[in-house]
């Protein structure tokens, strides 16, 4: 119940946040704009719309994760609102989990609204709702949740700007993970491969949560990709939340 109370309060906080609303409206506007962009391409209209829409969801999901995820903890700490809650009989991990769950609900709502816009756009072009986009959208949501978990971890011990940069780095490296391994294999070690190896092993491989090309190009893919993606994503999230809780558990709230 305590976790749910914190989650509900976080949901109210994020849903009443104007930044979030602005990002969301902009994202939906951009997805609908894909209808116009699709018109310009001669033969690939539907593909362009889906590709454009899913990319917009990914980018705006990242923006929400960075701006809202980091603010969520930093604001509590800077404004000291946290004093009123942590001084009550609630465990700190319950607070961390509640915050995360609250934001996850808001993000689910956002992804749902963006998906409705995308499905709507595809319906206008194809005359039917393309449910084949769903697995890609689910994994995209897991990716956003994973990035948010990183932003929460970073903001529990780093300055907000540094946290934002670190979260962006995770997103970029996470999508270049396979490329990083190829680079290590192709080029001889100049003394810094240990660092690249460390980054490769610590950062998540976000391409494992990327079904965009498969669904847009209508390529066959094994259903285990979705199952593996969910397991991979949620395992990572669990580990990150545990680390955040441990950091937070020992933190002096000065």
């Amino acid at each position: 119940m305590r976790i749910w109370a914190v989650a509900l309060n976080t949901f109210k906080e994020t849903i009443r946040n104007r930044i979030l609303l602005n990002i969301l409206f902009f994202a939906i506007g951009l997805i609908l704009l894909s209808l116009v962009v699709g018109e310009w391409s001669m033969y690939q209209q539907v593909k362009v719309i889906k590709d454009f829409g899913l990319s917009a969801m990914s980018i705006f999901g990242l923006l929400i994760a960075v701006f809202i995820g980091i603010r969520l903890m930093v604001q509590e700490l800077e404004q000291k609102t946290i004093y009123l809650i942590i001084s009550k009989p609630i465990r700190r991990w319950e607070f961390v989990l509640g915050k995360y769950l609250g934001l996850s609900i808001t993000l689910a709502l956002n992804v749902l609204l963006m998906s409705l816009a995308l499905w709507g756009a595809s319906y206008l072009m194809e005359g039917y709702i393309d449910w084949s986009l769903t697995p890609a959208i689910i994994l995209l949501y897991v990716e956003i949740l994973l990035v948010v978990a990183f932003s929460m971890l970073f903001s529990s011990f780093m300055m907000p700007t540094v946290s934002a940069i670190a979260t962006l780095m995770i997103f970029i490296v996470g999508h270049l993970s396979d490329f990083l391994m190829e680079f290590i294999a192709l080029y001889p070690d100049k003394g810094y491969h240990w660092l690249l190896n460390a980054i490769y092993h610590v950062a998540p491989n976000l391409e494992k949560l990327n079904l965009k090309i498969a669904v847009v190009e209508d390529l066959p893919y094994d259903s285990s990709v979705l199952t593996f993606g969910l397991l991979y994503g949620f395992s990572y999230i669990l580990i990150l939340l545990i680390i955040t809780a441990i950091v937070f558990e020992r933190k002096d709230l000065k």
Partner: protein
Amino acid sequence: MADSVIQTVSLSKVYKGELEHKPVTALVDLNLEVQRGEVYAFLGPNGAGKSTTIKLLTRLIFPSTGTITIQGKDIRDRYALDRIGFMPEQPNLYGYLSGREFLDYVGAIFRMSRSVRKERAIELLQLVGLEKGGERAIRGYSRGMTQRLALAQALMNDPDLLILDEPMSNLDPIGRKDVRDIILNLKEEGKTIFFSSHILSDAEMIADRIGILNEGRLVQVGTMSKLVDKQIVSTEVTFEIAPEKLSSIIQKDLTPVQQENRVMVRLSDESQLSELLESVNQSGGKIISVIPQRKSLEEYFIAQLGRN
């Protein structure tokens, strides 16, 4: 001790230095004991360690050494904070919530049922004079209203122990009086109140016992009556006497204030009193009043800090 609501033993706090900053010792070997049902004022100048102590008592920060027991439970026990109400200094509340929503949130943290939360919120908003502002967003509240709401949230779980950090600061005189009255009513209900303050007159009016903290050390503890009231610093004697007889009865080191045949003298030494009374009687004078002058808390406080 069975009746101790707060007990700290050898409590110390050193803030670790970050980057180039050196570690800061905020609290040294604090042995504090607050009894059930008393109003305990924790006094000290800025930077004395009052807020650090309160943050330790509410588990916002962790001790470097020492132990804290709240109502017989070790502070590390989550349920030690179950029957506590806490109001931080200059509280910031969730601006996007209304006053009623905020109290509801606090009630949910205490696992109160929805109907109890609703009832209690109405009751408390009335108590702190916010019945009209309860549905407004907190971001539109004045400082005083925020302070009142923060006090209301501290009472949400009907606590046995209230820990208040500077509860009267930022309030206008009427607001301060209201808060003082609420504290005194809570004391009558049998609650224990531990509060920090730098407004000594407020502490003097409501505290049973005070502790004075300076540079992280507890330098004095005692009941208000023991520390302040019983310390007679002088005795003011007023009498009537014929002006020509005054010079014969006034000792050399006294400075009388005379108004026609009425004279007032202040004796710093109690032994001078009987001699003066006798002289006035023998000269045919009439004693009007003998009033012992007691030290105010402010004078006592300054004297203590000066000594330390």
